[in-house]
């Protein structure tokens, strides 16, 4: 189910625009769906303690504030998520001390406590990312899944940072 993926490209590194963006750098990747011909953008936003937040959305939705909430109905969720995981793997090899965090954003139809996206991300991450490399931390109150790098010495700082960012967002 999650065995197919699209080739991806690194585009650029972006500095934060203004004070509203708190990341230090954003690494931007792109890939194109051969099924729908739609382009997806994947943002790896780097925070202190080498914590990286992963976000992806359709390029067409890039100007919308609700770009992470849209349901595309293209029926290629496994391929998209697997491609993002492959980007994560490539990024992690280049940045061996990075930890990762992502949120399963709620769509409008989500009524359960845990969002549909969160449940899928959790399932996929457990199956593809080894617990020997990363400690898997879940914070269901934020629908958040974090992969804390076991090579990083400041584990508690990373967890505090996650709490700080997401309790204030």
């Amino acid at each position, binding site marked *: *189910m*999650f065995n197919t993926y699209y080739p991806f490209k690194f585009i650029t590194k972006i500095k934060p625009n203004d004070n509203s963006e708190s990341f230090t750098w954003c690494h931007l990747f792109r890939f194109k769906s051969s099924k729908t011909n739609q382009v997806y953008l994947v943002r790896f936003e780097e925070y202190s303690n080498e914590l990286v937040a992963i976000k992806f959305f359709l390029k067409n939705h890039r100007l919308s504030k609700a770009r992470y909430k849209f349901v595309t109905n293209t029926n290629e969720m496994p391929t998209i998520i697997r491609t993002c*995981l492959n980007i994560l*793997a490539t990024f*992690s090899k280049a940045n061996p001390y990075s930890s990762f965090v992502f949120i399963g954003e709620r769509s409008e139809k989500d009524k359960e406590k845990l969002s549909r996206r969160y449940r899928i991300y959790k*399932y996929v991450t457990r*199956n*593809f*990312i080894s617990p020997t*490399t990363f400690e898997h931390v879940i914070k269901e109150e934020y629908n958040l899944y974090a992969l804390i790098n076991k090579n990083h010495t400041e584990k508690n700082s990373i967890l505090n940072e996650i709490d700080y960012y997401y309790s204030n967002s």
Partner: protein
Amino acid sequence: MYGKANANLKIDDYKDYSRLYNHKKEVAKMLVILSRITSNSDLSKTRSLVPRFIFKPLDELISLMSEYKNDIEIELDSYNYSVLTAIPAGFKFIPGEVISRAQVKGYTYIL
């Protein structure tokens, strides 16, 4: 364990035991596949000796559990796929069987 109801799945929760007899043959076939996969050393390495497999349909896994409930651990996810997370060392390889219906898929860690 994790799943729709966040509850531990027990075979006693399934009252309809009659269907287990119908699936016995399929279960035997699945055990053969299982033993083949677990004897694959590459997969064992990549999965840190705890391989996971996905089974569908669910009925077959329930049957499997009934016969081997003391030997294997089962996780159910939210999407009607069933993930077998731990396989006992004592599984025997039975040669000569062919799987026709059961779909078995093993993922490997990418990191």
